[in-house]
């Protein structure tokens, strides 16, 4: 049996990184990772967003998404199983980056990073949308 859920990742402490760890009782099949980045002024032109999957051994996948909105702006990023695309108007960008990981086991870590961030850059939202099964084979309580 599998179930559908979303996980809101705590980004209340401003920063250029968010993480989510697959709980011990679940196997995840990720549909999307959705995040919103607020970018400060003065950032490097090579700023971009990176989603990492890591096991206890180390990094097993890195998926990049471009900065669409530029400085002093907001980007909405969706990592999903579809081709890359991005749009932007003044102050707002929307980006999708290809992402289709296999089933993630307990303890696997997802990390989102604003690469080449400046001090004021921060994630304001981070959310994982996924199907899961329980490692016990049972049903959720």
């Amino acid at each position, binding site marked *: *049996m*599998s*179930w*559908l*859920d*979303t*996980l*809101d990742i705590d980004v209340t402490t401003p920063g250029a990184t968010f993480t989510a760890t697959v709980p011990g009782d679940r196997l995840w*099949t990720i*549909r*999307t990772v*959705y995040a919103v980045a607020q970018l400060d002024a003065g950032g490097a032109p090579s700023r971009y967003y990176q989603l990492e999957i890591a096991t206890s051994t180390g990094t097993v996948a890195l998926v990049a998404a471009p900065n669409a909105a530029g400085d002093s702006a907001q980007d*909405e990023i*969706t990592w*999903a*199983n*579809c*081709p*890359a*695309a*991005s*749009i*932007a*108007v003044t102050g*707002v960008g*929307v*980006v*999708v980056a290809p992402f289709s990981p296999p089933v993630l086991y307990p303890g696997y870590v997802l990390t989102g990073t604003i690469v080449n961030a400046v001090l004021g850059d921060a994630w304001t*939202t981070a*959310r994982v*949308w996924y*199907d899961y099964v329980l490692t016990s084979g049972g*049903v*959720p309580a």
Partner: protein
Amino acid sequence: MTLRTVAVADPVPGTDWSYTVPGRYLLDITGITATLRTINTTLQTTMADITGNGNDGTHGNPSLVGLELVPGLVPDDLAIECTHNTIGTAPLVADPVAGDFTIALWIASDDPDAFFNCPIFRGTVNPTVRFQVRGNAFGGFFQLTRVYAGASSDFFTTGTMPFPSGPVFVVAVYDEAANHVEFYLNGTAFPAQSYAAHPMTETSDEVVFGTNGVGVTSTMDEVVVFDTALSAADVSALYAAGLVDWATWQGVVTPLAPFAWWPLDDSGANTNDFVALLVTNGANPVADIPQGSVDVYAGSGPWAYSWQPGLGASSQSPNGGVTTVAIPRLVLPAGYTVGAHTLDLSAADEWSDITIWWDDALMAALDDYNPYIFPPSISLKFLTQGG
């Protein structure tokens, strides 16, 4: 397996469309199509008189802020926000003020204190005739002022009344032969007011409307001037037609042979909005998928969007375009929403013809089983947490 469609209701202009998956449904989306009509809401400098009589107006005083196009008071049309600026014409071609005339227009304001200046016909030293829709703390009223030889003047007014909300059709009829002024509000006449005959002479006839920065935000649409005194039946027919849509309104106005007609919808070149497909879990976004290709579009036609798993593409013609947007496979349970997320959506932009194609195989499979047994990898969770 049956391929089904659901038609999503058109949203009001200036808003994105959205669809919520109904209870006990599992929406396995095959594709979505919709059409976006984008309007450059910047009113152009020239305000056309569509009778062809040559009385085009000019958007004046550009240093003030805010003259822009908004959805029309006559449906399927555009209108202007008329408070923050003025529009004026050159001296009118031919002179409608010598004798009978009728002035008609649509206006709207949510504030009874709103103040309008409607068409002003200028003459000698002062405006020869001024038709105003005015308001105060107690309501609104219409007033027709005329200036005749020697700069003398008199005026006729409806008296203060509660001002209706929403689009209002106001008409002033000047019947020189009968020495009557008649006002109409939404097709209903006020008692006619008589006046003494005075010859009116003018050296110029300009029409000016807009309040040049006075009053609260208001909308004006379809200003029409006739060089005849319309009958009550004609006014009633105009009002009824204007409530339907612009084509119906046009069908009634045209046979009455207006002297001048300013629809007040002179838009600039159409601009292509940037569109993404937004999916939420009923509370928060879980995916926002943008279009892949961006075209700079300078035409005036609608733009069709087609979202489907696969590869994206785009093409355009002088009358519109099509963009196919590649999306992941979306299987959405009850309570989830899918809809457009348009960047820079303006107040006059309109989505229409929204159709979702979906495959009912997964949902049919659910119906065949105990509700707690699901097909592999795709699931519904009936419990209260998450989802």
